[in-house]
């Protein structure tokens, strides 16, 4: 099987996809919870989550440029 498949690349793709895909969805959700909250601290934390999501998008653009 390993003759036909790059197992090393595969598991990296799976782990990075899980962390990235699930992480971005979770962070964006927490960001929404934060900014819709009345408390200032929660709003700041929510904003921080969105900043991390934007950083993830920029990382994606970098991957495209670096290809």
């Amino acid at each position, binding site marked *: 099987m390993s003759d036909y498949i790059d197992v090393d*690349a595969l598991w990296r793709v*799976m782990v990075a*996809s*899980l962390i990235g895909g*699930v992480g971005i969805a979770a962070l964006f959700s927490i960001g*929404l919870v934060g900014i*819709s909250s009345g408390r200032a601290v929660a709003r700041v934390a929510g904003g921080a989550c969105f900043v991390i999501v934007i950083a993830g998008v920029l990382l*994606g653009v970098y991957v*495209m440029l670096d290809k």
Partner: protein
Amino acid sequence: MTGDLILLIVVVLTALSFDFTNGFHDTANAMATSIATGALKPKIAVGLSAILNFVGAFLSLKVAATIATGIVNSGAITLTVVFAGLVGGLAWNLVTWYYGIPSSSSHALIGGVVGATLLASGVSAVKGGGLVSHVIIPAILAPIAAIVVATIGTYLVYVLTRKVNENTRAKGFKIGQIGSASLVSLAHGTNDAQKTMGIITLALIANGTITQSAGTPFWVIICSATAIAAGTYIGGWRVIRTLGKGLTDIETPQGFAAEASSATVILTSTHFGFPLSTTQVCTGSVIGAGLGKRLAEVRWGVAARMGVAWLITLPAAALVGAIAFGVAQLIGGTLGVIVVFAAAVIFAALLYLASRKTAVTSKNVNDEWVGRGTPTQIGTPV
């Protein structure tokens, strides 16, 4: 005008036509969920996707003048084989569009080239191991990876935002969905437009028009970017409808989770050198978005129809590629290629005319999904 030059022009036109069909076939990958949830109006969605595909084509210009690398012997690749392979890919793209089935344009092109190569140079010119590792295994893994990521992502999105006001949640995820869908469009432009650039560059080198070290001419980049963007703007509404309405009924949180999953899986696979089909990843993500939401329904009949189409992509495109090569060889010379090209144009025109009888457009793309599996069974009259 010499016969070689005419052959070159026909190959370039066929490559750009393939690029065009690649664009309208794959609009759904990025924009189907945004259109289905109403995050973007249909025409705005395809317009945005077209612009991002155009821009994406210029983002990375490391164009490789190769086709089906690692799958067929490079020595077996002639201009006629490339042409016949393109006709095979083109025909499969058009047939799957007609039936509204998301299908990998890259796998169709590979199938076409494999079929033409088998007839031109025999079985020994095709690397079976390359087919397994470049097409068959990724075709199995792509939807699985996307389903896992999108299912967990969708589940978390709903759990985490369960106490958020419904309007705030819908508005927030609409914005997120537009961002993540845009990223998928951009990634599509960087990947797929460059395949056409590579094919045209290969044809120019084979014809002696440019040297191996000359690099891709600027007009090739402009033409490839324009063809994929124009195709994207035309919008493959039949495929958009299947992906956005047919597999599952999507809400904005699901649409966001699906697009985030697609973008991440596509970009990580590109980064780690394990390229996966954009179409298969995006389809897997939509299924995952359906599985991740409690009580959501995934229409497995529609998914099974896609699975069957993916299974026969390679042999079907190979058959057409082989027939195209055989007919071109039988007639012989440039005339043979022109006859096959004319036949391909007539086939495309007939399919287009047939599609008008059960048209899916920006107006009815979001109508209720009825019937068992085809996008043309519209809930309201066309």
